C-alpha cells in the first residue's frame, strides 16, 4: 500500500513470518522508517534537507501511521512494536500539530499588532485599574489635606527627605530641578530593582488572588503620589511637580496600569469563569495577560531609560511636559489606534 518499496529480501521476510501480525508489521515497516527519518530530521530543524516528495507525503504517512497503531493495538501482542508505534505516533503528532511560529516570526507579529490586540482585549480591566489608581491618588491628596500627619504614613521614607509638609518652596524646587548627586546608571539600576518595576510585577502576580490584592496595591501605590502632590501643590508647584513626574511617569504609570489590568484579567477569569472550566478560563486569560505583560516589560525598560537619562538632561518644565505626553500619546496610539489587518 501507498508505495512502500519492497526489496526481494523484504518479500521473503514477509513470506517467512509465521504470525499474521508480524506480516502486517513487515509490510508497513518501510513506511514507518520513512516517516521516522522525516520526523527525526524535522526535530533537528533540518526541514530543508527533506525532499518535496517527503513533505507532500507527510500527512498521508501520518494518517497511515495512526491507523497502523490502531490496528496493531487490536491485533498484535508484540509489546516492542506497540511501544515503537506509540512513541513514533506521538512524535509525528507533535510535528504535525507543532508550533508554527519561530521566535523571530513571533517577535514580528507581537510588535506588529499582537501586543495592541492583547491590550485592547483587556480594556475592561484597564478601566477598573484606572479607577483604582485615580481613587488612590485622590484619597492620598484628600487624606493629607485633612491631616498632615498622614503624609508620613503614606509616603515611603526614601521620598520624605525634604519633601515633607511645611517644606520651603526652594527646597522643593531643588528636588525637581538641578543635578541629583546620583548618575544615570545608579538611578537606572536602583529603578530596575526597585519600587515601580516591583509594583508592576506584583500587581500582575497578585492577580491570582481574584485580583483583590492587585486593586489594593494600585490604590496604595497611588496614595503616596497623591500625598506628595499635595505637598507640592501647597507651595504652588503643581505644574512643575507634574512635569517632573510626567517625563517618565506617563510611561511608568501606564505600565503599572497595564500590569494591574493584566492581573485583574486573570483574577476575573478565575473568579467568574462563566461556562468554561476554571482551568480553561485561566489559560485563555493567561495568554492575553502574558502578552500585555511582555509589553509592560518593554515599557518599564523605556521608563527606566527616561528616568535615568532624560529627566536629568531636560530641565525645562515645558519640555518635560512635551516629552512625557508625547510618549504617552505614542503609547496610546500604538495600543488603541494601531489596528493592522490580521495576517
Amino acid at each position, binding site marked *: 500500500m501507498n508505495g512502500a518499496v519492497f526489496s526481494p529480501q523484504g518479500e521473503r521476510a514477509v513470506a517467512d513470518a509465521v504470525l499474521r501480525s508480524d506480516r502486517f508489521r513487515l509490510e508497513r515497516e518501510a513506511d514507518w522508517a520513512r516517516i521516522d527519518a522525516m520526523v527525526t530530521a*524535522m526535530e533537528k530543524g533540518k526541514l530543508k534537507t527533506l525532499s518535496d516528495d517527503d513533505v507532500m507525503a507527510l500527512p498521508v504517512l501520518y494518517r497511515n501511521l495512526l491507523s497502523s497503531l490502531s490496528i496493531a493495538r487490536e491485533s498484535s501482542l508484540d509489546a*516492542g512494536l506497540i511501544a515503537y508505534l506509540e512513541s513514533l505516533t506521538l512524535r509525528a503528532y507533535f510535528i504535525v500539530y507543532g508550533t508554527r511560529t519561530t521566535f523571530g516570526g513571533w517577535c514580528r507579529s507581537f510588535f506588529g499588532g499582537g501586543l495592541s490586540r492583547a491590550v485592547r482585549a483587556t480594556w475592561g480591566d484597564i478601566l477598573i485599574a484606572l479607577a483604582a489608581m485615580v481613587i488612590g491618588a485622590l484619597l492620598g491628596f484628600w487624606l493629607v489635606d485633612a491631616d498632615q500627619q498622614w503624609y508620613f504614613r503614606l509616603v515611603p521614607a526614601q521620598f520624605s527627605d525634604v519633601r515633607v509638609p511645611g517644606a520651603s518652596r526652594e527646597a522643593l524646587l531643588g528636588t525637581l530641578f538641578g543635578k541629583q548627586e546620583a548618575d544615570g546608571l545608579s538611578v537606572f539600576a536602583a529603578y530596575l530593582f526597585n519600587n515601580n518595576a516591583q509594583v508592576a510585577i506584583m500587581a500582575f502576580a497578585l492577580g491570582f488572588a481574584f485580583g483583590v490584592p492587585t486593586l489594593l496595591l494600585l490604590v496604595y501605590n497611588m496614595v503616596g503620589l497623591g500625598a506628595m502632590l499635595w505637598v507640592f501643590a501647597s507651595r504652588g508647584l503643581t505644574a512643575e511637580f507634574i512635569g517632573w513626574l510626567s517625563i517618565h511617569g506617563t510611561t511608568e504609570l501606564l505600565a503599572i496600569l497595564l500590569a494591574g489590568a493584566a492581573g485583574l484579567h486573570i483574577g476575573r477569569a478565575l473568579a467568574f469563569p462563566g461556562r468554561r472550566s476554571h482551568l480553561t478560563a485561566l489559560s485563555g486569560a493567561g495568554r492575553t495577560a502574558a502578552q500585555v505583560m511582555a509589553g509592560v516589560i518593554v515599557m518599564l525598560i523605556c521608563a527606566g531609560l527616561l528616568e535615568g537619562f532624560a529627566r536629568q538632561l531636560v530641565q525645562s518644565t515645558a519640555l518635560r511636559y512635551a516629552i512625557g505626553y508625547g510618549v504617552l500619546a505614542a503609547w496610546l496610539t500604538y495600543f488603541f489606534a494601531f489596528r493592522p489587518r490580521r495576517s
Partner: protein
Amino acid sequence: MVQGASIGRSRGSDAKLQRTLVTPEGVALDIAVAPASARIGALFIDLTALFGLFLGFVLTILLLAWAYSRAGLPSVSDGVMNFLFVLFIIGTFLARNAYFLFFELGQRAATWGKRSVGIRVASRDGGRLTAEAVIARNLLRDIEMFLPLMFMTSGGVQGTLSEFAAWSGIIWVGVFLVFPLLNKDRLRCGDLIAGTWVVAAPRAALGSVVAGGGGSMVQAAEGLAPDRYRFDDAELSVYGEYELQMLEQVLRTANAETMKTVAVTICTKIGWTAPVDDEQAFLQAYYTQLRARLERGMRFGRRRADKNA
C-alpha cells in the same frame, strides 16, 4: 475489551502520571506527564547552561576591554560606560527569556535541559502549542523565580534588604517551586496560566521480529527439525498476555542465564523436561505459538490479561 486494550501499554512508569491524549483524528495516544524529578533535573541543566553562557559572554567582554586598553586607545568616558552597563543589564534580562522562548518555540518544544532528560512542552488541550502559550509560561517563570532572587540579591548588595523581605522572598520562591508537586498534572503556575504541560517525549527504536519462523530460527542446534517444539492447546493455555510480553523481553535481551531459568519455569508448569543448550529455540517456539494462540483469540474479541485471568 477496554481493559484488554490497556494490557501491555505504558509499562514501567508511574501509573498516576499516565494520561490519554486524543488526536484530532480520534486516536487515543498514551502520554506521560513528566515527573517532578525530570523537571528539576532539566531546570538545573538549563540554569547551568545559562550561567555558562553568561560567564562566556562576560569573559569575552572583559577580554575585549583588556585588548582595548592594551591597544592604547583613548579611554571611554563615564557616560558611555554607564550606557553600556545599562545595555548589559537589559541584554541579560532579554537573553535569559530569549533562551527559553527560542528553544520552546522550536520543533522539539524543549530547552537543552528538557531535551537531555527527554521531556517537552505540549498544549494541555491536545491542540497546537502557540507562541502566546510559550510566552506566558516563561514570563511566569521570571515572576516565580528569577525576579525575586534578583530583588533579594540587589537588596542584599545595597544593604536595603530587610529580614522580612528576605523571608518573604524565600517563601515566595519556595511556594512556586513546590506548586507542581501539589497538583496531579505537575503544573507550574506558568503552565496553569498558559494552558500547557510538560510531558515525556519517549523515543523507542523498533526491535527485530521475535516470533521465529522456519528459516530464521536459531542456528545453535544443527540437524534438528525446525519444528521440533510443538505445544498443544492445553500447554499454551497456562499463560496470558502479561507473561507473553515478559517472555518477549527475555528473548529481546537474550541473556543465557535468564533464558535457562525461564525455560525451566515454563517446562515445570507444562510438565516437560527442560531442553538443554537449546533454550532460545525452545522459548522462541513457545513464544510464537503462544502469541499465535492469543492473537487468534484477540481477533474473536477474547483477551486474556495474564495467567490468572
